[in-house]
Structures are given as structure tokens and as C-alpha cells.
């Protein structure tokens, strides 16, 4: 097994520097990882908090940390997780971070912490491809706001990570750089995509985005939950679908039992329009895509074809060469739904259904429920060969089933890994909170995370097992069109 359970006694000293051989360390626990209840002596601490503390105390330097991280990235190259590794940038940032720590002027908890950013976020001076031929070689002149906020806090940018082309998909299998391999099982190539909001220092108004909320955001801490009796957890009955795997169902049930046994009120609730949610999302999403992707015409940035006969011919060829089938398919679907004769019956209809879905959630939260507990996916990750048997649209419809409704209702949600399946793959559960009640949601999620003590992946063992096998492997799925 590639994961090892134990736990750390966090009242003792932190381990010596020689044990920092990877960012993700083994953490303590019991033999049976699937039991969600924890009665252990200590509680696991997230790696980045430990690292941040070590940086502040000078037990590890940002440069050292950066170098170890870069080394780890090189050793796990077979996972195909990175499109671009920004080694020079990261080392320079590490140097600056080190200077700040020496002077005692660290920028905050993220100063010196290595981060990687998905390759559909603009990074100034660093190639941003969105895993598409349309933007291959494109170097943005600006940082996305989220990236800027991370850099302002002193985070070290290690590189840009792989994704489906323009993030259209659910398995990170359809980008031009090939699929991402699941480190939990190198033979299973599937990475779950999360659609939850980020938080902490990344929250708040963005003056460059007029659709962001202006309410002031104060950084908050997450208290420990001591009194569960005031908490009401809702279990939406429509999320128990026939396609839900028995393992996920069982874990969902265990989680509900856990909350109840600790004194929380756990009740069944109804979100009647659940089965239409994914259909609604499909129509609205493709319609937006049809509009958004119109910016890619080859004129100002991105790929441009060689045809020069006319603007229309140039645009059409550029977009044919630049986009893969999935992206083109969504653009075409979206354009269909937006046709004059279809607009009312598809687009406006979907907008009306959206209101019904949002209303379902409002009604549930108004009835006294604080947080909803649902599965995140139908089952554990499936093998790549099985995953690609269905097309991207079908897979997305299946895999996004539980997670897209909150996007339409505008609610915060978080997925927490709970346990490993019988195949050794992670299974997580989703918590959905009330609008703008992120702190309450995350407090509940944090409590749950502590209870289940999900095992941390042992990357060192994984690398030892896999790197020799994959040394000479050509990733056959990488095909540049």
C-alpha cells in the first residue's frame, strides 16, 4: 500500500529537518482508514501550517523548501501534473522570501509557501495555455487577481498545472498535454475537478471584476466545534440516486451517523429539482461558452492560422486548429440554444429552472438547516480506459451531478476526502453552506476532517515504485494537433 497510517503527537517536538523529504508527510491514524470516528491520541495537522511554522522559526528556509519541491516535481513527472514548471521564478521568489524572514518582515502565513496554479489562470510572464493549442505559447502581460493575491502574500509559484482543455471536462483527460495520472493509483487516470470557491486571503471584492461582491471580507479563523447540539445537518434525499456506488453511499451514511452521534440534528430534506440541475447547467454553461469563446479569433493573441483570404475564413480556421472537439462541441451546442427559434425554449427555460433550483436551496436553509451533506461523486475514480469509453459531455454530466447545483444557486461548498475505497482510491463528501456563511461551512468541514483523519499520500514510496517503470515511457496520449 502506498499510504501508511500512524499519527503525530502534536504536543511533542516537530520532526527533525531530515524528514522534510516531501511536502506531504505521513500522518498518524488507526489501522482501519475507513472508520470515520477517531479516538486517537492526537489530531493531524495540515502540512502547510506545519511548514509555515517551520519557516517562521527558521528551521527550514524558503530556498530549501523550494528546492525540495522542485525536486519532487521532477521525480513525479510521470504524473503529468505540470504543464510549466517556473523554476527560476520560484527560486527568485524564495530568495526574496528568505530576505524577508531574516529581517522578520514576513508577509503572512503564505510567505515562502510553494503553490502551483491551474493553467487557466493568467500568470504574467509565464506561459498560460489552458491546455489548448489556441493559447500555446501565449504569455499573458498580467496576473489573474487570485494569482496576484497569492504573490502579494509571498507564495512561491512553482508552475502551472495540467487540466482539460479550457477546463471543459471532469477527468483532466482532454488537454493537449495528455491526461493527468492519479497518484493514488498510477493505473487510474482521473482527477476530480472541484468547483468550490477559494477562501481566506483570496476572498473579497475584485476591482477588476464588476460581478464580484463588494461586501468587506475580514480574514477569519475556524474555531473548534464543541457544541454540536445547535447544528442542523441536512441530507437531500434526491442525491441518493441509483447510480451512486454502494461504497460512497455507505460512507455518506457513516458521516451522517457521526454527526448525529456527536449531538447534531440530522434530518432528511428535499431539493425537488435536483434531477434537472445538471441539464440546466448544461444549457447555461454551453450558452455562456458560445459567447465567451468568441474572443478567440487569432487577431490580438493566441493561435492564428495561415489563411488570409478573409476575416471569416481566418477566424474559422484558427478556431478549428485551436480548439479540440470538446470545446468546439460546447460552442456549437451553445449557439444552438441561443438561436432565435430556440432561445425561449432552451436558454430562458433553463434560466427559469435555475430560479427553481436556487429556490429549493433557500427553502431548505430557511427550514433551519445549517449545512447540507452530500456525496461529491458517484463513485471512486474509474480507470482511464473505462473513463474514455463515454464522451466528455456524458462524463461531465455524470461527474458534475452533485457539484454543479451550488454554482447555479450561488452557494459555498467544500469537498472533504473521507476515506479510501476498497481499491485504495479517495472518496470524499461535499458540504454545502448558506450563502455568505463560509465560516460556518468551513468550521463544520474542518471538524469533519479532523474526525476522519484521511491518510496522507506517501509520495516517496510512490516515486520509488513508479519512477523506474515510467522512466522510458512515452506518454502516448500526448498528441499535438
Amino acid at each position, binding site marked *: 500500500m502506498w499510504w501508511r497510517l500512524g499519527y503525530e503527537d502534536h504536543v511533542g517536538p516537530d520532526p527533525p529537518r531530515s524528514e522534510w523529504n516531501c511536502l506531504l508527510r505521513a500522518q498518524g491514524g488507526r489501522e482501519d482508514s475507513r472508520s470515520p470516528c477517531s479516538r486517537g491520541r492526537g489530531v493531524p495537522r495540515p502540512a502547510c501550517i506545519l511548514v509555515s511554522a517551520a519557516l517562521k522559526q527558521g528551521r527550514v528556509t524558503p530556498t530549501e523548501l523550494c528546492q525540495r519541491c522542485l525536486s519532487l516535481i521532477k521525480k513525479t513527472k510521470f504524473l503529468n501534473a505540470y504543464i510549466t514548471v517556473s523554476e527560476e521564478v520560484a527560486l527568485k521568489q524564495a530568495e526574496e522570501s528568505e530576505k524577508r524572514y531574516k529581517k522578520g518582515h514576513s508577509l503572512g502565513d503564505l510567505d515562502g509557501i510553494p503553490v502551483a496554479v491551474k493553467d487557466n489562470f493568467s500568470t504574467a510572464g509565464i506561459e498560460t495555455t489552458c491546455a489548448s493549442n489556441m493559447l500555446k505559447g501565449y504569455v499573458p502581460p498580467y496576473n489573474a487577481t487570485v494569482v496576484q493575491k497569492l504573490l502579494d502574500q509571498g507564495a512561491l509559484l512553482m508552475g502551472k498545472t495540467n487540466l482539460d482543455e479550457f477546463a471543459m471536462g471532469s477527468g483532466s483527460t482532454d488537454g493537449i498535454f495528455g491526461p493527468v495520472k492519479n497518484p493514488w493509483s498510477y493505473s487510474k487516470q482521473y482527477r476530480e475537478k472541484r468547483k468550490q470557491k477559494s477562501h481566506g486571503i483570496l476572498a473579497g471584492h475584485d476591482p477588476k471584476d464588476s460581478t464580484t461582491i463588494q461586501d468587506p471580507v475580514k480574514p477569519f479563523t475556524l474555531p473548534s466545534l464543541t457544541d454540536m447540539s445547535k447544528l442542523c445537518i441536512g441530507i437531500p434525499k434526491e442525491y441518493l440516486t441509483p447510480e451512486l456506488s454502494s461504497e460512497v453511499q455507505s460512507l455518506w451514511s457513516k458521516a451522517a*451517523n457521526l454527526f448525529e452521534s456527536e449531538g447534531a440534528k440530522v434530518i*432528511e430534506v428535499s431539493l425537488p429539482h435536483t434531477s434537472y440541475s445538471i441539464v440546466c447547467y448544461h444549457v447555461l454553461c454551453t450558452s455562456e461558452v458560445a459567447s465567451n469563446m468568441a474572443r478567440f479569433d487569432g487577431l490580438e493573441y493566441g493561435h492564428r492560422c495561415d489563411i488570409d*483570404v478573409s476575416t471569416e475564413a481566418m477566424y474559422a480556421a484558427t478556431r478549428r486548429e485551436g480548439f479540440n*472537439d470538446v470545446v*468546439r462541441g460546447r460552442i456549437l451546442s*451553445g449557439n444552438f440554444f441561443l438561436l432565435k427559434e430556440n432561445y425561449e*425554449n432552451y436558454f430562458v427555460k433553463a434560466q427559469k429552472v435555475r430560479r427553481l433550483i436556487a429556490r429549493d436551496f433557500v427553502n431548505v436553509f430557511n427550514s433551519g438547516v445549517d449545512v447540507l451533506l452530500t456525496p461529491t461523486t458517484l463513485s471512486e475514480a474509474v480507470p482511464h480506459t473505462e473513463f474514455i469509453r463515454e464522451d466528455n459531455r*456524458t462524463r461531465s454530466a455524470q461527474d458534475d451531478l452533485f457539484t454543479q447545483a451550488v454554482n447555479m444557486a450561488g452557494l459555498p461548498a467544500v469537498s472533504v476526502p473521507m476515506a479510501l475505497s476498497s481499491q485504495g482510491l479517495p472518496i470524499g463528501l461535499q458540504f454545502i453552506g448558506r450563502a455568505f456563511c463560509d465560516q460556518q461551512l468551513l468550521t463544520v468541514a474542518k471538524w469533519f476532517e479532523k474526525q476522519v483523519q484521511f491518510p496522507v499520500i506517501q509520495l516517496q514510496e510512490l516515486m520509488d515504485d513508479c519512477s523506474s517503470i515510467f522512466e522510458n515511457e512515452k506518454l502516448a496520449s500526448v498528441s499535438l494537433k
Partner: protein
Amino acid sequence: MWTRAVWQGLRASAGGRRGFPSKADPQGSRRVTAELIEHLERLALVDFGSQEAVARLEKAIAFADRLRAVDTDGVEPMESVLEDRCLYLRSDNVVEGNCAEELLQNSHRVVEEYFVAPPGMCCPKWLNRLSHTKLRMQ
């Protein structure tokens, strides 16, 4: 314990009801005609490329058709969850810019400070395009 009773109840009801539209109707309620294909390609400036792509569109339409079953009488369309708020408008002050050179660098074809585009609607070839004429008549 609530869970045992409820889970049994949930399982019983889930068995009899299809909670998830897993199998799309392969035929779809609308056939995608050659005319429609040409029309969409023209609007989207994206090719279908293959018969498979047409089949995928038909499936996508069939999937979307499930919305017909929802009763939306008297329901207003929702454009944004923030519909009760005003859109943020910042003050009309110039705070950034002067980056023409940086921006021009990203383009493949530039002349001085211009992005170069191929000829557009002024081109004589365009005046005889059938599909465009049809569009104007709709």
C-alpha cells in the same frame, strides 16, 4: 436512529424512481439538418468536423429537452444570483494603461500599432454567399 429508518426509506423510493437522467434518448426530438449545421457553423465560426460531432450535438439537444418536463409557469428567468444587488461601477479615473507595446507583442501580425486583419465584409466574394443571404432574410 434516524439514519437506519431513513436510508431504508430512501433506498425504497430511489429504486422506483429514476433520480438521474443517465441514458440520453439517442434520437433526440429534433433532427439536425444540413441547413442547421451550416447555419451553426457560420454563427459559431467553428466546424463540426465530422458526423460524430453532429451526433454529439443531437445527444446534447436531447439531453436539454428534459427541461420541458419542468413546470415553470409564473417563474421569472434568473440571470444572476446577485440580481438583488447593483452592479459595481468604479469611478471614471484612469489608473492603468500605457501598455500598448506589451499587448502588441502577443499578436502574430502587427503593423506599427495596428493588429492586422484579413479583408472583411468589404470583400466582393462575400456579397454572393448564400448562407449569409439566408441569414439576412430570417
